[in-house]
């Protein structure tokens, strides 16, 4: 398989995921804004994606609508939902002969619909509807990939992109929200608003899961445990890295060679497997998550070096 093909597939999956993740975060933020009078939550969203400086430059005195616009349909922002769908579709278009018709048509259809929406938008966009639509389209594309792609090396590259992006997203949400939500000097597990933590869970679609797993009130350290260490939650760090480890293992077997990416994934995965939430909090959650985000980014670089550059 061409290295550039693997690269396109990997990034296609990352962009689909990024669009979905952004929609989930914005949805939760939207709901939160209805409940609280504080603007801290929505102001923190660009920070999750490392876009705070760019956002501030474009919108010196921003409103929440500005933020929503910036992260959904603003094509000047390369991480907006619209930009992500466009990029995913362009990656797919380059590889249309390596994709199934279902997957290609799903992404192409999304892009065509988006074009239509962008033309008809003006000022009156219904963000709630747009976010619903985004989630639906992304889930459909992911579903098309999972239900139609041949389980060969191409599939593994798609899944790698998906899992690496998900892990990155989960870690960033938890890191930023934890810091924003926790005022200076506040003890973990203190009197924080229940709704705010519920919002964090909603960002990864895990609010009900939390209820089912813990059947207890929402406590910060449990939210963190769920998002980092839960082995059966599809967006937890442990789950994502487990999948990455498996995909890289399959590629190593297929190609008869293990490389630095394979080793690094194994290391990150093991670290998560044997971690305990109380130690993580003792050593500092922020430090732990920053460490993970850096490690995950390095993993992505090694995947590039080993497979995508040829």
């Amino acid at each position, binding site marked *: *398989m*061409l290295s550039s093909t*693997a690269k396109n597939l990997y990034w296609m999956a990352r962009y689909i995921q990024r669009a979905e993740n952004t929609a989930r975060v914005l949805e939760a933020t939207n709901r939160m804004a209805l409940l609280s009078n504080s603007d801290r939550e929505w102001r923190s969203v660009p920070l999750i994606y490392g876009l705070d400086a760019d956002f501030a430059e474009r919108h010196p005195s921003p409103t929440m609508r500005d933020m929503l616009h910036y992260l959904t349909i603003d094509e000047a922002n390369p991480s907006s939902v619209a930009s992500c769908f466009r990029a995913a579709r*362009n990656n797919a278009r*380059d590889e249309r002969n390596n994709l199934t018709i279902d997957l290609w*048509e799903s992404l192409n259809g999304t892009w065509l619909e988006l074009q239509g929406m962008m033309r008809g938008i003006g000022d009156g966009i219904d963000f709630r509807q747009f976010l619903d639509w985004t989630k639906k389209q992304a889930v459909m594309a992911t579903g098309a990939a999972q239900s139609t792609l041949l389980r060969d090396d191409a599939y593994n590259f798609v899944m790698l992109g998906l899992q690496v992006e998900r892990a990155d997203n989960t870690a960033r949400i938890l890191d930023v929200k934890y810091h924003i939500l926790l005022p200076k000097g506040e003890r973990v597990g203190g009197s924080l608003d229940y709704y705010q933590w519920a919002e964090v869970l909603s960002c990864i679609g895990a609010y009900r899961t939390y209820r089912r797993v813990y059947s207890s009130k929402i406590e910060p350290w449990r939210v963190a445990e769920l998002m980092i260490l839960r082995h059966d939650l599809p967006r937890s760090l442990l789950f994502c890295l487990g999948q990455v480890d498996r995909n890289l293992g399959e590629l190593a077997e297929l*190609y008869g060679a293990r490389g630095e990416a394979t080793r690094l994934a194994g290391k990150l995965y093991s670290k998560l497997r044997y971690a305990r939430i109380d130690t993580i909090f003792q050593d500092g959650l922020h430090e732990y998550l920053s460490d993970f985000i850096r490690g995950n980014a390095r993993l992505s670089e090694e995947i590039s070096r080993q*497979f*995508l550059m*040829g």
Partner: protein
Amino acid sequence: MAQRQFFDEMSGLGGQSQTQGQGQRQAQQQGQARPPYRRIAEWLRQTPEEQLANKRREAEALYRRHGITFGAYGSADGHETTIPFDLIPRVLTQEEWRFLERGLIQRTRALNAFLNDAYHQRDICRAGKMPENQILLNEQFVGLAQGLTLPGDVHAHIAGIDLVRVSADEFYVLEDNVRTPSGVSYMLENREVMMRLFPDLFQRHSVLPVGRYTEELLNMLRAVSFNGDREPTVILLTPGQYNSAYFEHAFLADEMGIELVEGSDLFVDDCRVYMRTTRGPKRVDVIYRRVDDAYLDPLAFNPESLLGVAGLVAAVRAGQVNVVNALGNGIADDKSTYLYVPDMVRFYLGEEPILKNVPTWRCDKSDDLKYVLEHLGELVVKEIHGSGGKGMLVGPTSTKAEIEEFRGLLRDRPANYIAQPTLALSTCPTLVERGVAPRHVDLRPFVLSGKETVVMPGGLTRVALKDGSLVVNSSQGGGTKDTWVLGA
């Protein structure tokens, strides 16, 4: 000006046919269709227009959903429009096709012999049939291809020869395309769509299939490897998804099961070409390139090009990789060389040309230029290196200002232009806004040359959708039709 008489391929009216009998002409005056179109005419009479309009919408949706798009450079929304597809097929009899096929194979063999000669001894010049400057001073001449001996001596592996028809028995070659001719994917997709929309029509006709094209193409590509001792790796090199014919590149690569690559996927080491894969470098033997000469190798041509592969030309010269079509083919298909093609047939093959050229005036000759300037309102003037229907003047449909603009251009750089009479292109019934009406068509059959020379029965029929327009190019609002060659 008197109303022009156009030959209509269904009714048989118009045009000046020499062989048509009186009885046949009468039958046609009474509204009977020519024999190959009898059942099409019957079908059109029986099918309500509403139903045709529905089928057309269905076809459009199919093309759009499959992402079968064509980007005409300079279109309003940047790129990606579908080429309009007309539902009514263009029909050729077996007899008509046999004639065209013989002519196309003959012409392509002559063009190949010429290209091989032009980059070796230039016997045709020594024999006094063509001035050597016609080759050496041609902008498209590639010095680095001089003396290069290619597998099977083939240079124009894939040729698209544009034909027009003016009467029941007269066809002309409008131009030869032997660089990177495009459009074959539409020939194939149009057939697929027609068979899906109108299976009953295919039951009523015996239509020769065209679907084997990609297999013939792959066979040809495999046959022209320099490295005959090993299983050849064949790839398709595209400029990328922003190229107007990208859909076709992806389609052909997919149909042949070969890798679709861009320049950045390839590198040259020690005159061998490799592609970058997830398993490491893989050696390449034959490159079906859809990148123009000028962008193919920054070391040999345009140094700014990012579309090509550095060192590729050296690899070809070393006999380590073959590129299809060959380098420097542009000297054979520009509009000034066109004039010499009948002589090429006589010189290389010792045969009389089967297919005729359109009479052509060369504006670099003062007598010809004088005539052209006096008759600008009747003629078609074309740039020698122009393509895609751009940079041309169609006298009868142009305004005074446009004609005067060309008069200036011709005076400034006469050697850049040729002129031809405005041909009475035949018409075919076409579904337009208000029902079915005749529209002008041309035909581009595709000729493959490897171990032998073959043509798929049919080709791409392009149709000028605007009433009265003679310009069929897709970049100028033309559409396409499925082209049928009837079986015995």
